[in-house]
């Protein structure tokens, strides 16, 4: 299992942009018909990398998205985090059972803010062990609420625990600073997958995060960004 990484040069075409864009179906209070309608709209665009859905909707999402070549992901401990490691491990195992491609999962923010990086590493290690290479894990450190030192130590702990990729933010008001993306890429090199989420509202935003070092970008206004790309890119 890998993160379906693509070359990191700035996308010059709609297709290469789509290959590195992701989004989620939430609103969680949407009904099934709304979810189905949302997913079916992606047939009008080149395949994006992945879409995240509620666990009970994974079969529905696979039915619609797999023929389109779009990966299906789930989340856990999201967007608030601080779930027990046992609950996160259960979510990862459920993701494997469902055949989901990726799980984006919130970190142990209380441990980070308590500078208990041993706990951060142990939480990461148990999640990576639970995945057993059968589902791709992206851990969310929520970069915007961390000091630079907390961020670097957290990522060191994740990597020591076996994590190979991070998603910077859950969104929900905690936007990702471009400078943090540059810092992470500079400090941790190309070995770490960096997906950016939080604050990406336009094509210009997306391109600037790619320029800063992002592998993929999650954006809730996905259709307006793709429509803008259709006009401006080849």
């Amino acid at each position: 299992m890998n993160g379906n990484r693509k070359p990191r040069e700035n996308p010059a075409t709609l297709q290469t942009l789509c290959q590195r864009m992701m989004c989620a179906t939430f609103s969680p209070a949407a009904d099934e018909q709304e979810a189905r309608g949302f997913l079916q709209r992606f047939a009008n665009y080149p395949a994006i990398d992945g879409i995240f859905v509620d666990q009970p909707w994974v079969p529905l999402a696979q039915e619609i998205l797999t023929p389109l070549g779009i990966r299906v992901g789930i989340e856990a401990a999201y967007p608030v985090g601080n779930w027990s490691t046992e609950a996160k491990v259960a979510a990862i195992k459920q993701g494997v059972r469902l055949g989901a491609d990726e799980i984006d999962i919130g970190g142990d923010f209380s441990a980070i803010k308590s500078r208990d990086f041993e706990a951060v590493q142990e939480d990461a290690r148990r999640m990576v062990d639970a995945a057993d290479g059968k589902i791709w894990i992206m851990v969310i450190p929520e970069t915007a609420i961390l000091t630079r030192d907390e961020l670097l130590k957290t990522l060191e702990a994740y990597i020591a625990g076996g994590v190979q990729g991070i998603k910077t933010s859950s969104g929900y008001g905690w936007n990702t600073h471009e400078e943090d993306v540059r810092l992470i890429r500079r400090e941790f090199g190309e070995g770490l997958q960096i997906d950016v989420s939080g604050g990406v509202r336009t094509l210009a935003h997306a391109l600037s995060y790619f320029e800063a070092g992002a592998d993929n970008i999650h954006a809730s206004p996905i259709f307006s960004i793709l429509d803008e790309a259709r006009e401006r890119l080849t």
Partner: protein
Amino acid sequence: MSERRATIPEAVASRIDYTALRKDMSYRELEMVCLEAVTYNLRTIIVPSGQVRRACAFVSGSRPAIGTVISHPFGTQAPAVKAVEAATAVAAGAQELDVIPHFGTILAERWEDYAFELRTLGEAAGDATLKLVLEATRFSQDILAKACSIAAELGFSYVVNTVGFRLVSTDPSAQGQASPETLSKLAAGSNGLKLKAAGGIITLAGIRGLLSLGVNRVCVDAALGVLRTLAEEGAK
């Protein structure tokens, strides 16, 4: 002359679920939250599932009890995952579980799937008190009543009007509020479940108003730091 600390009236303190779910809460801040709840003799402290064991170490006796939230805030996990979170929390000392069901299942009126989810949770929860967390303003009266009726049959004790998170938008004003209208709507469909009010509860007068409507528990957000104000308001 010793200065006496103002207390929160027992009729109110015994109804407060003091809720500490802030994302960046450190262990030290959790300890302070627990100390506050002990000082004011509140009913329950609600913490994330990853902090139940630590919170239990900061309290003793039956009050405040420690509770947690299951699949907070979106309820998007599969029943089996929620069951693990519940059973682990109970084993760590949680006595109350505020459970977020899968709203999409409720809105689709897949009542067998919904009942399976609640039954699975009930089996995992042992003797813990179960509270069903809904978004009352998002559901029709019929769906609300049906969801509560099934939960009551399956051993749930309370229904809560809102998750208290920005459920459908990144706009903070989209958070659920404990308005009298919403609680009255919930009361009309509660089908025997006791009522817990959540969202924007910051004054003693507000809590008393909710209790007079038949509300049994109220969520007071620890992040708002209002306990001293509640006590001072009670001393007047």
